């Protein structure tokens, strides 16, 4: 996760899907489906737009649009949020329903999971209840075949009355057929005859009392039968959307109010109370799904999910569940640390070699020294450092993490940890948003949309920064290698010790997340845990090559972009601060001197605190700023080895305690500017943004203060 522009915060999309029909020429196609049915893969395969997909429920937390051409026609594909239903139990279902119903797409493709068709038909039936222009895509057909599940698409078509296409989007199987079916529906070349869902006689009579009036009021602009049913069901959110669509309050019509009352009375008299109506509607749809599947789906092997069960019995078992989880995390860290050494060195040599070349050119051109200072020793070196130290660990960590995601392991993590979150009065899916935070905390904050309860969503957003994001990983890795791994070990053993300390740091982040969540639940965000349902999707064979190519490419481009956008100007500012002298010493020294007593209190010094403050735009630059500050010239040294860094830090008074306090404060301090901005956007509240700033900072100050002063008290340093 966190591998695309979308999830790294560079293109944070809004909540509402608004398609401007005047600006785009083409047919609008809605792509809907249950979470985790390969909807995003279908989307990518059709549009070629590289949207990231993950094997866990609720990945598409925001809508994405893409275009494709077929038979000289433009199609705009809108990836609407994955939902189980259109009954608006959550914000996402509301968005999905409103798009299908009120945006009037030229066709709606409902992507379903062939291995679990019966439950997916629920959404299909709810969709064809709203619109006739539906194409059903039975995806993951290969997986169904492997599990010996046979699906008779002809029978499905006969029963549903809309085109049904079997696909395997990963291998592009069936996609031509799908585009063709969509083309035919969108351009009105084929008329569908969808199954009409009929309810009990009483409900039908009630609908008929209301339907003609709706038809009259709306002039046939909208499916009157469906609207009648929803009004009888007292669906307030639908009514709101409907009024917005119509531009007036439909309830202003006395005739409608009158007949609605009459219809409700009719229902009551026949023993259908308001809360029972919903049950009957849902039950009817589920029963039809069941009936259709009995006819169209056959299981060649009743034990089709045996392998998944076996894997789950280990990965979620009482004894192995949590150890396996920690071991997997540690293995990923170890591969990252051990694997990043060599490429880091190579990149450093390359980039610093290029610096020498640039210097030669500057000298040859007689460029003034201060320009060289600003551009090369200030800006370029910071850039080179960030790229060479940050890039390799990311290029290893993210494909590995995505692999776990693609396999379907992450929902199991949420499953294993849910009880801890419940005890913290938080939501189990917070574990998933934390996983997203490993990529980027801003992405993690957006990911919090998968949590329905506003209270629990806020808790997840505020605590997301306790998961170290990719900007902080390399700092943590470097410092643990120097002050923990380096102190007691050499060679291969050193990376093992670093791995261990990194795992401990992450574990600490998780524990602090739980403790802070609990404290928030008992103070400013009081409340009980809300309902929790989590789907554990079938394990899937990961698309290894695609993961590697995609995550490295996406990440590389993003890191380079961000390095240029943030690290370069920061390098410039530091160089200027270090080289402009006021009253005998530089501005940098003055500022650091001012912050020094506070820094010392927390086991650090003024330069480090200043680096964290200046690192607000991006955590990547905290360590480079510290290094630059320590250099008398105010620019970064060239160093190809971690030993150089160690010498520099130690000669500036660092001890193992400083190392640990910096690592802790790196884990526990205010989120970066992008994350704060995202929190502001997601919560629509300055207050919660400030809370998100203050809470981790206070925690960091307390923890560092205690650690530093306890160590000093016992004379450990």
């Amino acid at each position, binding site marked *: 996760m966190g591998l695309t522009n979308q999830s790294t915060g560079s293109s944070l999309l809004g909540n509402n899907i608004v398609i401007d029909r005047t600006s785009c020429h083409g047919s609008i196609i809605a792509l809907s489906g249950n979470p985790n049915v390969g909807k995003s893969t279908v989307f990518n395969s059709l549009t070629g737009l590289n949207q990231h997909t993950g094997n866990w429920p609720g990945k598409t937390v925001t809508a994405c649009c893409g275009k494709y051409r077929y038979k000289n026609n433009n199609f705009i594909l809108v990836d609407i949020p994955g939902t189980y239903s259109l009954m608006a139990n959550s914000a996402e279902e509301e968005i999905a329903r409103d798009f299908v119903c009120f945006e009037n797409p030229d066709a709606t493709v409902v992507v379903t999971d062939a291995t679990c068709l*019966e*439950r997916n038909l629920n959404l299909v039936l709810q969709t064809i209840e709203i619109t006739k222009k539906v194409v059903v895509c039975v995806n993951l057909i290969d997986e169904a075949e492997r599990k010996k599940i046979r699906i008779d698409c002809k029978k499905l078509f006969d029963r549903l009355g809309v085109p049904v296409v079997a696909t395997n989007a990963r291998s592009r199987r069936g996609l031509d057929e799908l585009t063709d079916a969509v083309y035919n529906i969108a351009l009105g070349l084929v008329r569908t005859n969808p199954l009409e869902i009929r309810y009990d006689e009483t409900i039908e009579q009630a609908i008929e009392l209301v339907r003609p009036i709706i038809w009259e009021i709306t002039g046939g602009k909208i499916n009157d039968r469906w609207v009648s049913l929803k009004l009888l069901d007292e669906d307030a959110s639908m009514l709101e959307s409907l009024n917005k669509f119509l531009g007036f309050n439909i309830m202003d019509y006395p005739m409608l109010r009158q007949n609605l009352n009459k219809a409700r009375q009719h229902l009551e008299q026949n023993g259908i109370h308001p809360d029972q109506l919903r049950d009957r509607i849902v039950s009817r749809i589920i029963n039809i*799904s069941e009936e259709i599947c009995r006819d169209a789906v056959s299981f060649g092997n009743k034990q089709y999910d045996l392998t998944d069960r076996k894997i789950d019995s280990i990965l979620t078992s*009482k004894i192995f569940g949590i150890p396996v989880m920690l071991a997997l995390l540690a293995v990923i860290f170890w591969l990252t640390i051990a694997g990043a050494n060599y490429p880091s060195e190579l990149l450093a040599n390359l980039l610093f070699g290029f610096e020498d070349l640039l210097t030669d050119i500057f000298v040859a051109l007689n460029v003034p020294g201060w320009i060289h200072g600003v551009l090369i020793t200030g800006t370029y070196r910071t850039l080179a450092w960030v790229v060479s130290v940050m890039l390799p660990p990311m290029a290893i960590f993210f494909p590995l993490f995505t692999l776990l995601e693609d396999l379907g392991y992450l929902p199991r993590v949420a*499953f294993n940890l*849910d*009880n801890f979150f419940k005890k913290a009065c938080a939501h189990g899916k917070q574990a998933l948003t934390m996983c997203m935070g490993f990529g980027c905390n801003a992405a993690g904050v957006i990911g919090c949309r998968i949590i329905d309860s506003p209270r629990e969503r806020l808790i997840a957003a505020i605590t997301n920064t306790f998961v170290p994001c990719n900007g902080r990983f390399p700092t943590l890795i470097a410092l643990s290698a120097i002050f923990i791994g380096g102190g007691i070990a050499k060679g291969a053993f050193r990376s093992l010790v670093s791995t261990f300390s990194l795992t401990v740091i992450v574990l600490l982040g998780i524990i602090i997340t739980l403790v802070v969540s609990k404290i928030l639940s008992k103070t400013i965000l009081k409340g009980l845990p809300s309902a929790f349902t989590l789907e554990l*999707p079938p394990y899937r064979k990961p698309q290894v090559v695609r993961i590697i190519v995609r995550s490295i490419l996406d990440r590389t481009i993003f890191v380079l972009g961000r390095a240029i956008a943030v690290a370069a100007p920061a390098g410039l500012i530091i160089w200027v601060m270090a080289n402009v002298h006021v009253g005998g010493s530089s501005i940098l020294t003055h500022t650091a001197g001012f912050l020094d007593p506070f820094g010392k209190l927390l086991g650090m010094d003024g330069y480090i605190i200043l680096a964290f403050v200046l690192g607000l735009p991006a955590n990547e630059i905290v360590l480079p700023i510290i290094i630059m500050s320590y250099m008398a010239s105010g620019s970064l040294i060239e160093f190809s080895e971690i030993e150089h860094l160690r010498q520099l830090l130690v000669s500036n008074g660092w001890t193992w305690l400083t190392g640990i306090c910096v690592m802790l404060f790196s884990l526990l301090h205010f989120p970066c500017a992008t994350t704060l901005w995202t929190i502001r956007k997601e919560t629509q509240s300055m207050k919660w943004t400030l809370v998100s700033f203050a809470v981790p900072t206070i925690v960091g100050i307390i923890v560092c203060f205690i650690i530093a002063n306890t160590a000093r008290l016992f004379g450990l340093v």
Partner: protein
Amino acid sequence: MKENIIALKNLPIGRTAKIKYLSSVGAIRRRMLDLGLISGTVVEAMHKSPSGDPTAYNIRGAVIALRSEEAGKILVELN
């Protein structure tokens, strides 16, 4: 209450049962209905999480984890 009617949360792992009654209301009830938990639906208790809660159930071919709070409000009849 009949002997063989129990709360879903007490359904032993590996056993299947038929939904008899949902006592939850409001949003939680709707969520349960969305999962296909209506009267007559057959569910199987598959496995518990390491700390004993939540439990994963096989509901209409999908594996869904429910906390004991939710599963306690669903009455099932043992098969």
